[in-house]
């Protein structure tokens, strides 16, 4: 058997000469003293390959349209076999790549590997770093969740702040007058076609130049014989790659890649935050407000990029040891420390917002309402429509309010329209419930008192008040932290009869409309909001 395989391989070699290519790739002699520091490039190349492979699988299921993008990502995460791991590998792999790229670049800088004749190898490396950041930026929008939408809005607005060409640049990035379907299509195309093609081209150029000039080797020559790449250095590469892959895989199996609720351009309460590797830049912007913004968004990053590109031409001393090049080493340390500090400050500055995985009173009430006959008559297995737990609302809240009020008119074709409809307050609660279901957030265990409080809030309070961004807060104000301002006794008296406390109060009295249990429940809930 072995002889036949060998004969087959010899035949293929006689026709293709592949063994020569294999030897060329694997038998490259490396100078003595090439140690573990020289594995960084191989690790980066490996991570890029994982990213390409996982990205390939994701494109089989992802749809780049605002109507379906979020649902397709949710499908990948929740229902596709191994989809959760594939998406996590791709998501966390991006962070691993940024770290690996920075480590690789630091190694090259500290070892002065960019020196003559490797200047162009270095420049192709800088271009690759920009391509990697381009991937991170464009990939961020694709899940079309709240984080994606609002972070991209900020990114485009930063581009718009550029002097002279800002508006044109912003329009080019948006591909239209608003961030929407055209933007998503453009960024998707850049993410899966343009950037991968550029990546392959520049990786090929980088590797070709690396082989053409040979690797730079240790900063001071080490005595000894050159050894072939395979298996001696390949062993070091492989051990570190195995460790990095084990870390990435373990993380991807144990932690889900985040996915917020679906993008909602009308939600003004969302505070976007960039991914951690852009956080230093984001933080820097805070120190250059108003017309000075381009200093942080363009000038400082631009100068840094220019310094990196010119480094091989500025740093020309003979000695490659980092301690013999104090300006470069200190500059490198200063930039690194500044970015680390800004990132840390950015993390400290993260605004506190409602936990998106918690259910508010509207969603809790909506779950109860959606299980009654008015919905379940059609939304049931084998019914005219899918169960509500599987239904994706693609239209807006106003549509759902109309549908809940009169299902027959807005969804023609029903054989037996259910008796009665819902009012808009009830429909809002069902809408909130369906958004939670769509976001794949498991329903909580709710006490009877919380259920009663939720029902009262959804049907009585939410028409004028809001909690955690839910409800119409324009008339009555936000009650998210009302417990800090008012105690239970005051709330009970106010809800029962506002005019008894303030004669000019516009809020109606609910003392006669709520049962004693309902009043106790809503007072207890609101007093606990701190």
């Amino acid at each position: 058997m072995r002889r036949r395989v060998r004969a087959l391989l010899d035949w293929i070699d006689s026709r293709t000469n592949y063994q020569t290519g294999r030897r060329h790739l694997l038998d490259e002699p490396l100078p003595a003293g090439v140690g573990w520091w020289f594995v960084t490039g191989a690790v980066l190349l490996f991570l890029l390959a994982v990213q390409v492979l996982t990205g390939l699988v994701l494109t089989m299921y992802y749809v780049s349209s605002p109507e379906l993008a979020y649902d397709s990502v949710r499908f990948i995460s929740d229902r596709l076999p191994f989809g959760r791991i594939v998406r996590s590998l791709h998501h966390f792999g991006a962070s691993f790549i940024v770290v690996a790229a920075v480590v690789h670049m630091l190694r090259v800088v500290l070892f002065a590997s960019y020196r003559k004749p490797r200047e162009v190898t270095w420049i192709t490396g800088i271009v690759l770093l920009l391509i990697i950041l381009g991937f991170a930026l464009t990939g961020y929008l694709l899940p079309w969740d709240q984080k994606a939408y609002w972070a991209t809005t900020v990114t485009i607005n930063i581009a718009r702040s550029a002097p002279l060409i800002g508006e044109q640049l912003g329009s080019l990035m948006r591909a239209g007058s608003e961030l929407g379907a055209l933007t998503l299509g453009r960024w998707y195309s850049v993410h899966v076609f343009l950037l991968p093609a550029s990546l392959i081209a520049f990786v090929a150029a980088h590797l070709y130049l690396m082989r053409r000039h040979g690797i730079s080797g240790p900063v001071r020559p080490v005595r000894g014989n050159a050894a072939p790449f395979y298996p001696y250095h390949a062993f070091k590469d492989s051990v570190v790659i195995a460790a990095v892959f084990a870390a990435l895989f373990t993380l991807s199996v144990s932690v889900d890649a985040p996915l917020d609720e679906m993008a909602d351009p009308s939600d003004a309460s969302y505070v976007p935050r960039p991914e951690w590797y852009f956080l230093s830049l984001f933080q820097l912007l805070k120190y250059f407000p108003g017309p000075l913004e381009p200093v942080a968004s363009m000038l400082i990053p631009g100068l840094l990029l220019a310094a990196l590109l010119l480094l091989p031409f500025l740093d020309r001393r003979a000695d490659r040891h980092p301690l013999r090049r104090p300006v470069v080493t200190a500059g490198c340390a200063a930039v690194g420390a500044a970015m680390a500090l800004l990132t840390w400050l950015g993390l400290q500055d993260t605004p506190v917002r409602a936990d998106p995985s918690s259910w508010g009173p509207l969603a809790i009430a909506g779950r109860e309402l959606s299980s009654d006959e008015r919905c379940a008559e059609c939304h049931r297995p084998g019914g005219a429509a899918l169960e509500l737990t599987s239904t994706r609302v693609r239209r807006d809240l106003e549509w759902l309010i109309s549908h809940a009020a009169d299902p027959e008119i807005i969804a023609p074709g029903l054989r037996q329209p259910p008796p009665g409809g819902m009012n808009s307050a009830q429909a809002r609660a069902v809408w909130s419930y369906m958004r939670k279901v769509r976001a794949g957030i498991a329903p909580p265990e709710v006490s009877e008192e919380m259920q009663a409080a939720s029902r009262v809030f959804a049907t009585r309070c939410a028409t004028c008040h809001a909690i955690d961004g839910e409800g119409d807060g324009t008339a009555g104000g936000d009650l998210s932290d009302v417990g800090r301002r008012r105690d239970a006794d005051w709330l009970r008296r106010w809800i029962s009869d506002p005019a008894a406390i303030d004669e000019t109060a516009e809020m109606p009295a609910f003392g006669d409309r709520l049962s004693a249990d309902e009043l106790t429940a809503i007072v207890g809930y609101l007093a606990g909001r701190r």
Partner: protein
Amino acid sequence: MIGMHTPGERRRRFLGRVVQLIHGGIAATLGVVLGGAIVLPSFAKRREDWLEAGRLSDLPENEPAPTTVRVQREDGYTQIVDRKVIFLVRTGDATVKALSSTCTHLGCRVSWDPEALLLKCPCHGGVFDATGAVKDGPPPTPLATLPTRIEGDRILVRL
């Protein structure tokens, strides 16, 4: 055989094996995860439900009546309205047979010829009788029969 190699050659072989083992392990892990995500959805079974298909009193005796059953179902990451055409054949006072309208030859849609009292496939001449049995042409098996249930006058078909 190993004894014939020098320590340097043995080291070289050992390191080579470790490299192959690591990359084989990574390739196998990624192969299972990525291959699973590509291949397994192909074997997912469609969910079946009991769907209302009509009323028993509306059906003629022993004559296939084409009926369109409308069902909203999930299709991957989206939801579609699926319209399935079936033939309902009343076979007794309280019994009904539901035949698939899909020809068992190559999947074309058969239609009822009321003059010949036969179900005919327009693609390659497949012919079935009112019970779904093959009468002529290339179909290898009778038309598929779908499970049915009668509740009062309502006919429910499992689709």
